[in-house]
């Protein structure tokens, strides 16, 4: 069967073997996107959707061109990508560096290269190059994430564009690359890293969110995180170290200390929180050091390292938050966490965006009937906040359909990834999926007021050729590689 298909390789076979589900989802999203831009920028004076001087007209132009790009990409031999992955990556890194110096300052960022009437954002295309380079790395014979050197190379490939883009002052686009942690995870990185990342985010949010309430002489946020650390330590002893004795002893110790503190508090004697937690956790850690002698040394040590690192991280959160982040970034985070309320200032975008979406109701106000977006209450509505227009005009039904379409696309790409026969193809596919996951979760989360405002576009919807073409490159290279998956043995 497989042999037969190999022999039939050719133009007609391409049409048959290309993943039509992905193409159809792509086309649906891209058309919906251009129509949304028309709605978002609709003006009483301009009525033509295809007027090329308007945003929607231009977007249709970009969309049309991206079809050609997609078609061309389907015709290019996929071996080129693997063969030239590193040179392409190198060129893109150089272009990113050049951009830092060549790009004009647009709203504080130097990420746009201007060629006459056309502006391009190299960062959008660097995603594709980075994905190819990472795929090439993992596809190298004998490469595996099993030593520090390989980890370093893989992480280096990811971090290099991040640094360049941060220097372009385009933090949002830089953060997109962090999503490649999913790829590393899929390719063998310890799940513990993912778990640690999740813990770090949780600690961060809790410490900041409950910083103002005091309990036992310490902020409630820190109190809660101490408890979480204790719970996680016990859980790791139970499910990771699988040591009944250690689990029981630590658990009994923690509960006993908690009861003693509770009884004392009942009689009006409040122990200082820091003293309490440092004593209790400190004693438990000393006990675990002793316990290492009997049990799986590596796993217990990791538990100790986790607990200690968690505590250190927790205390550095405040310092890091106050000293590392820019004031506007701090405010964005505080507004998102609901700690600060600032509907006329930083919170304005998010507040108006929530009003726009919320006012859509179940069925929406109808195409071109949105008032929030038409009357420009939502800033950046045709770019980063394009989802507002959908929320307002298409309502709960329309927005849900759009989000589900994205989910379908992502799940489809994961499915494509898993059916590849080469590591190169699979890693590349996971890169595409990771980028989409990041864009979708951050952009929609921001518009819904669940994430801080990080200026990244919603793929296929937000206005702009660079973003659209960047994702077209990513997707159609994947489709071409996928179409060839069964002939991998032929070269």
């Amino acid at each position, binding site marked *: 069967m497989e042999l037969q298909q190999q022999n039939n390789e050719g133009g007609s076979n391409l049409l048959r073997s290309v993943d039509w589900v992905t193409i159809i989802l792509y086309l649906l999203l891209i058309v919906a996107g251009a129509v949304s831009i028309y709605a978002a920028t609709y003006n009483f004076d301009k009525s033509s959707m295809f007027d090329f001087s308007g945003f929607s007209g231009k977007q249709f132009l970009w969309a049309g061109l991206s079809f050609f790009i997609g078609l061309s990409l389907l015709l290019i031999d996929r071996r080129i990508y693997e063969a030239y992955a590193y040179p392409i990556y190198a060129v893109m890194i150089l272009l990113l560096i050049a951009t830092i110096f060549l790009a004009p300052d647009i709203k504080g960022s130097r990420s746009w290269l201007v060629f006459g009437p056309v502006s391009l954002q190299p960062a959008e295309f660097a995603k594709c190059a980075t994905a190819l380079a990472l795929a090439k790395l993992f596809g190298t014979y004998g490469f595996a994430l099993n030593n520090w050197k390989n980890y370093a190379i893989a992480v280096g490939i990811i971090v290099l564009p991040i640094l360049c883009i941060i220097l372009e002052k385009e933090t949002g686009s830089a953060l997109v690359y962090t999503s490649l942690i999913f790829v590393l995870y899929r390719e063998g990185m310890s799940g513990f890293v993912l778990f640690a990342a999740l813990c770090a985010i949780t600690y961060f949010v809790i410490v900041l969110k409950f910083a103002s309430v005091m309990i036992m002489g310490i902020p409630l946020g820190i109190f809660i995180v101490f408890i979480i650390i204790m719970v996680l330590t016990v859980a790791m002893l139970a499910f990771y170290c699988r040591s009944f004795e250690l689990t029981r002893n630590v658990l009994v110790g923690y509960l006993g200390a908690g009861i003693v503190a509770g009884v004392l508090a009942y009689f009006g004697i409040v122990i200082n929180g820091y003293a309490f937690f440092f004593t209790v956790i400190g004693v438990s850690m000393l006990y675990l050091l002793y316990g290492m002698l009997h049990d799986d040394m590596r796993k217990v040590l990791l538990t100790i390292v986790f607990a200690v690192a968690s505590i250190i991280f927790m205390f550095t959160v405040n310092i890091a938050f106050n000293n590392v982040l820019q004031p506007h970034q701090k405010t964005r985070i505080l507004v998102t966490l609901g700690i600060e309320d600032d509907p006329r200032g930083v919170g304005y975008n998010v507040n108006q965006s929530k009003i726009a979406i919320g006012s859509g109701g179940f069925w929406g106000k109808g195409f071109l009937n949105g008032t929030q977006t038409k009357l420009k209450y939502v800033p950046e509505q045709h770019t980063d906040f394009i989802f507002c227009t959908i929320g307002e005009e298409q309502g709960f039904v329309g*927005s849900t359909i759009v989000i589900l379409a994205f989910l379908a696309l992502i799940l489809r790409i994961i499915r494509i990834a898993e059916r590849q026969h080469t590591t190169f193809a699979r890693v590349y596919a996971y890169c595409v999926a990771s980028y989409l996951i990041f864009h979708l979760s951050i952009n929609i989360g921001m518009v819904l007021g669940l994430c801080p405002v990080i200026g990244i576009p919603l793929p296929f919807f937000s206005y702009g050729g660079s973003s659209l073409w960047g994702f077209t490159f990513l997707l159609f290279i994947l489709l071409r590689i996928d179409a060839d998956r069964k002939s991998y043995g032929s070269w």
Partner: protein
Amino acid sequence: MRKDYNLEKRKFVIGGFIVVLVMIYIARLFVLQVGDSKYKENADSNAFLEKTIYPSRGLIYDRRGKLVVYNQPAYDVMMIPKDVQPFDTLDFCQTLQITKEELLRRIETMKKGRNYSAYTQQILLPHISAQDYGRLQEKLYRFPGFYIVQRILRQYDVECGANVLGNIREVNQSDIDHDDYYRPGDYIGDLGVEKSYEKWLRGRKGKEILIRDALGKIKGRYNDGANDVTPIAGNDLKLSIDMELQALGERVMRGKMGAIVAIEPKTGEILALVTSPNYDPSLLMGKDRGNNYAALIADPHMPLFDRSIQAAYPPGSTFKPTQGLIFLEEGIIDLTTAFPCSRGFVSGGMRVGCHGHGSPIPLKPAIQTSCNAYFCWGLKRMLENRKKYKSISEAFEVWKRHMVSMGYGYKLGIDLPHESRGFIPNSAFYDKIKGAGKWSAYSIISDAIGQGEILATPLQIANLAATIANRGYYITPHVVREIVGVGVLKKSIERHDPTIHKQYYDSMVEGMRMAVTGGTCRGANLAGLEVCGKTGTAQNPHGRDHSVFMGFAPMSDPKIAICVYAENSGFGATVAVPVGAIMIEKYLRGQLSSGGEARASHMSATSSYSTKAYGGSKPAAKPAAKGAAHQTTSQPQHSHGTTATK
């Protein structure tokens, strides 16, 4: 190829992550879009600017169809504080011809207002001129957050009838709380028909929904105006008041405190409703309303107090016909019954004075000569009739029920606000103030001659005249003949039949005619007009007697019934009778004869308070004015030991 199936399972972690996240987002969307309607309201208040369009308030015409009250546009400068952006204050002030300090002061005042909100339209400058309006309108685009609202001011074509016409004022919080039609800055009728017919006069406000963008620029009309509401103009009123008669009444009452009520008996339509002192209705219009209103409130003679319907006076001898009617109805007397009068009622150790006339006399001459003794004897006989009534209380209750049926003791229901009910005591009242069983016919004998505890409004007295003129019925007195487009309100044309048989009224008519031809009100004997009348000289604890006249004409087909009440003006014949005669002549003849005109000029020059009773100096005026205020309350006055009423 090496395929690690252990690692392949990790696709579920990655896929699961995004599935869970998408579910969270959809849940969040549901909460925002379906669960909470506040976002819809926020979006609407962002995008839609509701501009109120005020309807034209109903016009007011008088009896002869003359336009009396109409509308004149005025312009208020409004601002929505949250929408105001830094603007050229110098240009703004010059356009409106105010100083910067004035502007700042206005803004300060505005912010202190009770209804102040930074998100709604606030009045910055009320009533700017048409020229200022024109200039500002041109430049308004430079001052975002400022708006001009066109309002309607009332314009009066007469200087009289303020108590009937009323005026309009800006609504206060209590108006808004009671009727959600009103918004801050709206106008509402105050006093007079402007108040009582507010619902018809105001019409219905319209609105225009404009679309406003994030910068506050108006982008057009929402839905092409399909959701706009066209204002509906208020209904016009046709008054029953004859403004010429009203003006004459106010002229002849000049310098006197009191009231004139003239009613067309057959219809209950009020022809003139004069209170004195009064004021020009235009005073309570426009920019100076506040100051003028405060001055009127502070005036010790209380021009805002409508004495014609709000003042409760002792009716004095005008009350006697009611007594005659009750005695006839109850069979206490008949037309031949005569009572002695020895210059007064002398019985049981007390004396109610009277004046020289023949004795004993029957009912009609008693009315003619206003004999006090006759009605005292009558009341005594009724209250002491133990064959008919078990007790004095029962007798007095019967008496009271008849009085109430003749329109006394309760509001008549005129279509004007704040009508007083007067006062007719009942037996429970006397049980309370004198003690049960401790009062007799003697202790309340002065009720028979309209003194004692009896109080009546000039309207109630005029209504009695109308009832007698109609020979036994009256229509609820009213000042609005017709609400144009609606018709006549049923309530104001209701017929009432007192509990007295119609045949007894003729003797009253005759008695009153005799009083004019050869009795106490000869001064009202106008040739050919067949005036019937009854004077009153009401004692009161506040100085000189009140001068009262009650009458109607012509006798055979009455066209006008009238009550004139002049405070502290002495005998009925001195002021009230000539004023009544002037009014009757004017109304029936259309104009005054030269003699009538001379009398009118004389009356308007006669003053009973500004120079005589109240003196000219301020310190003297104050306590006197207070007294005037006192006696006009509806609480009963206790003035016993009554002597003469004429």
